[in-house]
Structures are given as structure tokens and as C-alpha cells.
């Protein structure tokens, strides 16, 4: 009898080509996603005069630099225009399929991959973007890499890796209405810390995880990196198979049936051991917001800004003081007393159709007290939202209905939060200056951003949901 294996072990074994004596393994890459920011790697290829080893397994997406509010046919900033054009040229030169600026399937790479059926259970997926962990939601082994590794994958379709340690995070129980994947993952990061899962792969398990839709699981796995994890994953199940079935690049007919047969085995065996186990009770999770400058600075909405004076560890007290100072807050201030200047709904974390529906459910018939931007996760999500009339809800509430891209999550397309402004945001990083120099970011779920927009301050969404269909 073979030894009991975790999901992580099974995925690793299926991709291992060579294991060196020193412990590093060469792994086969099933999908390689590239974006405009991958230009350093393409330059490396050009220097060596090397071709792309597997153009059929390499897919390009224009997301980081594309405009999400201005008209898209004319990019004003010549440097940004060059970034988008460079991706087009590299894709054409290397015969890589590109979901470019004008493709109706364009969107954020971590939304497009699953949406197109490129991301499947059992695959090993890499991309030069840390939020590649997102794709683990379907039971894939997916992680972000740097430019040198992107170049290596382009040239060889393989990557050297050291086997990660295995962590299982089990969330059992039933989450209360209005509590979603974003609240769960922020609660996890608050518990284990921003480096709590460093050098680990995480398997998310438990009844509350099983109860999540694929959209919710994508949000959950997306934020694994914010706990320092190499990757996060959820074992595929019938929800996954239903999601994958019929998508453009997913296997069809007999190949799909073979896939389901193989994917059904992708679960942790009884008795398999993890290097670390963490457990949370879903019923105890309230809507979560971040107050500071690290995703670990997350608290339930009814809490207050921490007081560094009550902190015995000097390094931690210093960290709290600096975060409070940057964020322009006071120790002990109620989180619900924090007024916002702006709202953003978008990013690879929370801009899928379910996220837009959750925000719209709060906003329908209400008005935002602050300006805000809604940037759908993909152009197809945008179209679907418009078919459902969600764009009208956002517009009627006074928010701007934009195009799809990374937008105000990272601000490199020029959509930024002004210095000193405070933004309620569905994104993944509340780092200093992440949304623009001097910008102050509070992370939360789409429903909580909608609630903050309506109140003009951080606010509990639950009373706003009373009597509404969610």
C-alpha cells in the first residue's frame, strides 16, 4: 500500500521530471501566463536568440497597463502605450495566443485563465505575478515567479523548485449571511500573519470552504500570497467540474470524462500528514476590514484601531505606530468612525460576477457618498454584468463603471488614489503607496466596500442586507 498523500504531494509528483540529490526538482509547467510586465523575460529571450519552447501552452493577457477608465483605443501616456504594444509584438513574434486590449475575452489574467477553461484541476501553472496562487482554487498547483524564472519557463517549459512545506487550513462551520471568502481569508491572515505561511503550500479544507463557489475559492486562494504562502489550493469537487465543463479551452467529450476521473483522485488521503495545521470556525467570522499597512492588520468591523502602548513586543509596537501614523488614524479609534474618500471595486481578488452582484445587492436604490470606480475582472464579466443590469445599479449609485484590468489595485495604468486619500477597496494589498504615493487603503469584501460607499465611512454591511436577496 502506498503512503497516504496530501493533495500537494500528488500535484507535485505528477509534475516532477528530475529530482536532484540536493533536493531541488525540475517540474513540468502545464500553463504559462504572461502579461505586459513580462517584458524583462522576453528581453532575456531576445538576448539569447532563444525561441519559446511551448507557445501552445503559453498565453498572454493585457491587464497590468491597460486603461480602465479612459477610452481604450488611444492611450495617452506613451510609456504605458509602449508596454501594451510590446506585449502584442512579443506575442506575435513567438506565436503566443494573446487576449489583447481589443479582444472581447481580455481581462485580468487570474480572472481570464479560469473563465476560459485554461486553468484546470491538476495543472501546474506559473505566471510572473504573485497572485497566480488564485488558480489553486480549481485544484491546480499555481504560483507566482520572477522575470528570470519567466524567461526559464519560456525557454524550457519547466521550472526548478524546492518542495514546499505543507499547511492545511481547515475552516468548518457555517459563515453568517453577508460573510464571504474575503472575510474568511482576511481572518486567516490576521490569525497566522503576513509571513505565517512562508515556504508553505496551503490546502484550504473544511465545510465552510466546500460551501464556497468557485468565485469564492478564487478569492481565497488569491490572498494565500498575503500570508506568505507559495500557493494555496482547494481540492476539486463536483462544483469545480461543473465550473470547468464547456469552457472554451477545457477538455471536451471523452477527454473531459478522463479529466474528471483523474481530478476526482486529487484529494488528501485519510491519515496524510501536514507540516502545520490551522483551524478556524466560520461562524465566529464577522465582516473584516484592514486598518493598517499590511494585510495582517485586519480586524472585525466592530473593533477599534489597536493601541501600540498595549503591545509588549517593541518591534510589533513600532510596526503598529508606523502603520497608524501612515494611515492617519488614532489608537483606539472605532473602525466604523473612519471616513473614506473613495471606493474601488475590482482586481483579481474580487471583480468576478459574484463579487459585482454582492456589491450591487447593497447598492441598489442607494447612493454612494464618495466617488468610486468599478472595474470588472474581465471584459466578459463586464458584458454579463451589463446583461444583468448591474452597471445601472453602480451608475445610479454614483459610481463609475469602468473597463477591465488591474486598474487601481496597483495603479500602474495611471488610475491611482490621491496622496492622503482613503480608499475602501476590494483589492489584496494595503501596502503604503500601493494604490499611489501617499494613498491609504482599507481592504474588505465587495459588499463591505458598497456599505462603506453608502455610509461614507467603514461600515458593517449586515444591517444593509436586511430584507434583501443576497
Amino acid at each position, binding site marked *: 500500500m502506498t503512503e497516504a498523500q496530501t493533495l500537494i504531494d500528488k500535484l507535485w509528483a505528477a509534475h516532477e*521530471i*528530475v529530482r536532484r540529490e*540536493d533536493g531541488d526538482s*525540475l517540474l*513540468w509547467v*502545464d500553463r504559462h501566463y504572461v502579461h505586459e510586465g513580462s517584458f*524583462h523575460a522576453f*528581453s532575456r529571450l531576445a538576448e539569447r536568440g532563444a525561441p519559446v519552447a511551448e507557445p501552445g*501552452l503559453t498565453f498572454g493577457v493585457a491587464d497590468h497597463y491597460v486603461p480602465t477608465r479612459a477610452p481604450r483605443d488611444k492611450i495617452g501616456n506613451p*510609456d*504605458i502605450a*509602449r*508596454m501594451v504594444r510590446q506585449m502584442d509584438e512579443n506575442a506575435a513574434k513567438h506565436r503566443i495566443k494573446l487576449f489583447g486590449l481589443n479582444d472581447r475575452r481580455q481581462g485580468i489574467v487570474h480572472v481570464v485563465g479560469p473563465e476560459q*477553461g*485554461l486553468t*484546470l484541476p491538476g495543472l501546474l501553472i506559473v505566471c*510572473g*505575478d*504573485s497572485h497566480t496562487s488564485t488558480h489553486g482554487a480549481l485544484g491546480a498547483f499555481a*504560483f*507566482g*515567479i*520572477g*522575470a528570470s*524564472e519567466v*524567461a*526559464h519557463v519560456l525557454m*524550457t*517549459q*519547466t521550472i*526548478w523548485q*524546492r518542495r514546499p512545506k505543507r499547511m492545511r487550513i481547515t475552516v468548518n462551520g457555517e459563515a453568517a449571511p453577508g460573510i464571504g471568502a474575503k472575510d474568511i481569508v482576511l481572518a486567516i491572515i490576521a490569525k497566522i500573519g*503576513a*509571513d505565517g505561511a*512562508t*515556504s508553505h503550500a496551503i490546502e484550504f479544507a473544511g465545510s465552510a470552504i466546500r460551501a464556497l463557489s468557485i468565485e469564492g475559492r478564487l478569492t481565497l486562494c488569491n490572498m494565500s*500570497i498575503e500570508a*506568505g504562502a*507559495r500557493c494555496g489550493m482547494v481540492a476539486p469537487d463536483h462544483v469545480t467540474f461543473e465550473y470547468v465543463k464547456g469552457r*472554451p*479551452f477545457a*477538455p471536451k467529450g471523452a*477527454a473531459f470524462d478522463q*479529466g474528471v476521473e*483523474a481530478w476526482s483522485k486529487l484529494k488528501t488521503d485519510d491519515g496524510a500528514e501536514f507540516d502545520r495545521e490551522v483551524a478556524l470556525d466560520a461562524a465566529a467570522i464577522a465582516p473584516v476590514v484592514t486598518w493598517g*499597512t499590511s494585510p495582517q492588520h485586519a480586524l472585525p468591523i466592530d473593533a477599534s484601531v489597536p493601541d501600540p502602548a498595549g503591545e509588549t513586543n517593541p*518591534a510589533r509596537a*513600532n*510596526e503598529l505606530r508606523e502603520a497608524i501614523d501612515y494611515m492617519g488614524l488614532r489608537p483606539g479609534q472605532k473602525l466604523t468612525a473612519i471616513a473614506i474618500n473613495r471606493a474601488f471595486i475590482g482586481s483579481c481578488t474580487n471583480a468576478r460576477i459574484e463579487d459585482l452582484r454582492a456589491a450591487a445587492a447593497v447598492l441598489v436604490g442607494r447612493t454612494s457618498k464618495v466617488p468610486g470606480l468599478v472595474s470588472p475582472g474581465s471584459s466578459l464579466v463586464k458584458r454579463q454584468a451589463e446583461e444583468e443590469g448591474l452597471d445601472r445599479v453602480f451608475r445610479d449609485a454614483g459610481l463609475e463603471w469602468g473597463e477591465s484590468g488591474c486598474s487601481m489595485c*496597483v*495603479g*500602474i495604468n495611471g488610475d491611482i488614489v490621491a*496622496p492622503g486619500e482613503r480608499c475602501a477597496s476590494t483589492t489584496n*494589498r494595503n*501596502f*503604503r*503607496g*500601493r494604490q499611489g*504615493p*501617499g494613498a491609504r487603503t482599507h481592504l474588505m469584501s465587495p459588499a463591505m466596500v458598497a456599505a462603506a460607499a453608502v455610509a461614507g465611512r467603514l461600515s458593517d454591511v449586515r444591517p444593509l442586507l436586511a430584507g434583501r436577496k443576497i
Partner: protein
Amino acid sequence: MDKFTRITATACPLNVTNINTDQLLPARYLKWPRAAGLGKVLLQDLRFDSAGRAEPDFPLNRPQWRDAKIVVAGRNFGCGSSREAAVYALYDYGIRCVIAPSFGDIFAGNAVQNGLLTAAVPDDVAAELMAQLTTTPGTPVTVDLEQQTISCGNHSYGFAIDPVRRMRLLNGWDDIALTESFSDRISAFKAADRIHRAWALPSE
């Protein structure tokens, strides 16, 4: 890639935890080619105010640490975005080694690809080094990768680094050449895999 064996240099204490790659190189510089000089915008928004004036109290702006080749920082250094240009910015500024209790995984991988050593030490050692460098800023620090030691004044400490990464830094190895030596194994894997996991290919 340049080899790393041993350096003796000025070390700058950066007593901050979670210095992420957005701090090391803000996103607006990501469209710069490396040749544009990423070293000058390293930690831009911490080193300079919004008008571009140097923040006099920021350690790397202080005369005693301006020429540092070593940085000692708080835990989770380099967390966040996978941008390898954060490593280019450090390296092109002149930094050859970062000492911290822990590092972002992707950052540490990017560092080794570019000859930058990430030396992991326990929390108390990082705190002790930072305290010593703050009280006696002139003390040179020696980092020896062969011995895996850090010396500062009369003190010597061990540090941790993945053994594979250590060998790569010591030898200045390039991954691609190594991988190409396994090309037969890769071809064999691919051929078998296409039969075994036919469902794994994109269908369109």
C-alpha cells in the same frame, strides 16, 4: 551572474518589518528598463518626499550608511509582488546582501537569480545587529557565504540559506544551462505525459 563568496562592507540597519517589493520599487517605475538606473529609485517613497527631497532621517540617506552594501532589516523582507525589478533596484544601488529574520519566497528566489544574498537570521540576531550598527555605525560587517557566517565587531553569527541557493551563488550558476543538460528527460516526460494526461492540453 556574479558570484558571491564573501564581502566586508558598511551595513545599514532598516528597522522595519514587512518591507514589501512595492516599497523597494514602487509600481510606477516598473515600466523602466533596467538600463534606466533602478538603483536611484530604490525605496523611493521612503527615501524621498513627494517633492523629491531626500528624507534626512531615512537610514540609507544618512552619510554613515549611504554607501552600504549590506542591509539588515525586520522580518518578511521582500514580501508581496513578484516584481524581480525590486532585486534589480537593490543590486543596482549597490546592495549585495540582505540580512533579515525571514524573506518573501518569490523575492528570495529572484535574489539568487541575480547574485543577491538573502541571509536569514533569528529575530534576536537581527535586532542585535541593528542595535550595534545604530550605536557604532562605522563597524564593518563581513558576510562569508562559504562559512555561512556574519561578523560584526567582536560578534559572529551563523545564518541560514537554502543549500541549493548557496551553491548557485558561490558558483554564479545559470539555471538554463543546467536545465538544458536534462533535455532528454524533459522530452521523455512530455511524451509520456501527453498520453497519460491528454486532458491537460488546451482544447481550442
